[in-house]
């Protein structure tokens, strides 16, 4: 219990300092705030125009697609707030930032995880939330207590899956000193695979996106659960159990890969 309180006090103060740091440069935040809604608008508009012409994609109507996209967006927003530093893991490596973390009597992965809170990401969450609520209206989502609880754990689990995928792949920076290409690749892959229902892809790809990189658990299975659509997979449990469970498993794996990379860390000159 004391240990938990200790970690929480360090985490909250470290995150607070990181936010204060960004508020020193407000213009950057404002300009990004203006950009982000446009980025999301293109996604939802794409789905809208596609369904206008095709009536449905893989059997999914526009409201259902919007719901899928909404869960994807919201989990992306939360990930962008709390763990966007994964994208820039190579900077931490090249600037020797892990030196300092290694000198402190705390888990390095923990220090890395709490070293940054992205204020700009709050806009991602807000936009994601509005897209999601809009889609909930479209599909006539029933706001019962149990549905809300299921939704919250699913979205948190989905954010954890996204963040862990980035940790795992960006840890390549410990060996190669670069990860911006991997970051871009993963971002593209995640956007394309969470925008459409998994069923439009060939079976092999579906299996890969379920078993190898568990993208399907981010929004596809949970949307199927809520909307009563057949996912063509038999899950052992409800999405509200599966998504957070897969989130925790990938998170544990991510830590292991990160620590493996850290052992390979060579610091930087001087």
């Amino acid at each position: 219990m004391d240990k938990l309180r200790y970690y929480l006090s360090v985490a909250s103060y470290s995150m607070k300092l990181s936010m204060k740091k960004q508020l020193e440069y407000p213009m950057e935040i404002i300009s990004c705030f203006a950009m982000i809604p446009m980025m999301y608008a293109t996604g939802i508009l794409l789905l809208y125009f596609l369904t206008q012409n095709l009536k449905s994609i893989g059997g999914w109507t526009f409201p259902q697609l919007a719901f899928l996209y909404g869960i994807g967006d919201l989990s992306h927003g939360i990930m962008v707030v709390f763990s966007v530093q994964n994208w820039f893991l190579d900077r931490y490596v090249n600037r020797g930032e892990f030196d300092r973390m290694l000198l402190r009597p705390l888990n390095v992965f923990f220090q890395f995880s709490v070293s940054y809170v992205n204020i700009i990401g709050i806009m991602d969450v807000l936009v994601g939330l509005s897209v999601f609520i809009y889609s909930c209206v479209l599909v006539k989502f029933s706001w019962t207590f149990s549905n809300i609880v299921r939704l919250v754990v699913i979205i948190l689990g989905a954010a954890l899956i996204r963040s862990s995928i980035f940790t795992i792949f960006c840890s390549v920076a410990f060996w190669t000193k670069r990860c911006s290409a991997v970051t871009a690749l993963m971002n593209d892959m995640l956007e394309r695979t969470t925008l459409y229902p998994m069923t439009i892809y060939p079976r092999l790809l579906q299996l890969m996106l379920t078993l190898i990189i568990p993208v399907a658990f981010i929004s596809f299975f949970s949307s199927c659960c809520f909307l009563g659509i057949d996912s063509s997979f038999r899950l052992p449990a409800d999405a509200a159990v599966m998504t957070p469970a897969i989130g925790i498993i990938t998170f544990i794996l991510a830590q292991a890969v990160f620590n493996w990379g850290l052992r390979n860390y060579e610091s930087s000159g001087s």
Partner: protein
Amino acid sequence: MIVISADQLSKKFTVIRREKGLKGALSSLIHPEKITVNAVDNVSFKIEKGEIVGFIGPNGAGKSTTVKMMTGILHPTSGSVEINGLSPFKDRKKVVRELGVVFGQRTQLYWDLRLGESFELLKRIYQISDSMYKANMKQMDEVLGINEFIHIPVRQLSLGQRMRGELAAAMLHSPPVLFLDEPTIGLDVEGKHSIRKFIREINQRYGTTVILTTHDLDDVEQLCSRLIVINHGRIVEDGPLQDIAERMAPYRFLVLEIASPGIGIRHSLADTVRQNGNQVWLRFRKSEISASRLISDLCYSYPVLDLKIKEPDIEDMIRELYKLNDKTGSGVCN
């Protein structure tokens, strides 16, 4: 009591040799020519509690790599290092709690925030109690004058103020061992003075063991009871500065000003090394003849107007030491 012991510590880095031009870049992509660099090569030493040890050596000699291995940032390729009997890799968290570390070229302070906010974070990380924190901050203020600029963002501090802030940050949790990597780099005379005063003070007051790397020989002369000279990853000299000086440069010089330029000056126990008009330089060994004896001999035989004694320049001596090692290629390890 031995605080730090390094036993045959080695660190090898593998680098790929790049050749010139696009063709070279391509060929090193296909056939990378790997070169192993011995950054630190079989280094052994022991450091007692309360010592102030200076690590010196030219750039790239392996000083920082040695410090990084002692503090657990880098894993040695072979050999071992122990701090208070514990390995900084296996028991990292336990070991680093006992360490304070300052990298002169890199900051641990939050660049955009007030200095005090970085201290607040450290207070939480090291679980320093409120009363302890207050007492430590008061002491830091007494010695380093921290309160003067604690409310200023770090980016607006002068280098001297920032370095004082770094030292305070490193000592906030009262670690018994302090590592300083080039703590006086780029500082003015006043800045260097206050840093040295601080180091002496904590060493005397708390018996803090201090390991510092530096290029500034004044740091070494004024602070260090012991000097470890590293070159090409090996220990070249290890001992008190005076001993090394005596061994390396046993000579002193007597500079005479004589009445007329034409006189040739000779003495059986001193060499005339230079004669410029009225000025004559004689080199002699302390062990062979005392300065007073030499002076009285010469004054008796020659028309001496004025004289002074020059001690060997430590800087010259160190330069000799670096060069010596370059020529032989292998260390004169002892």
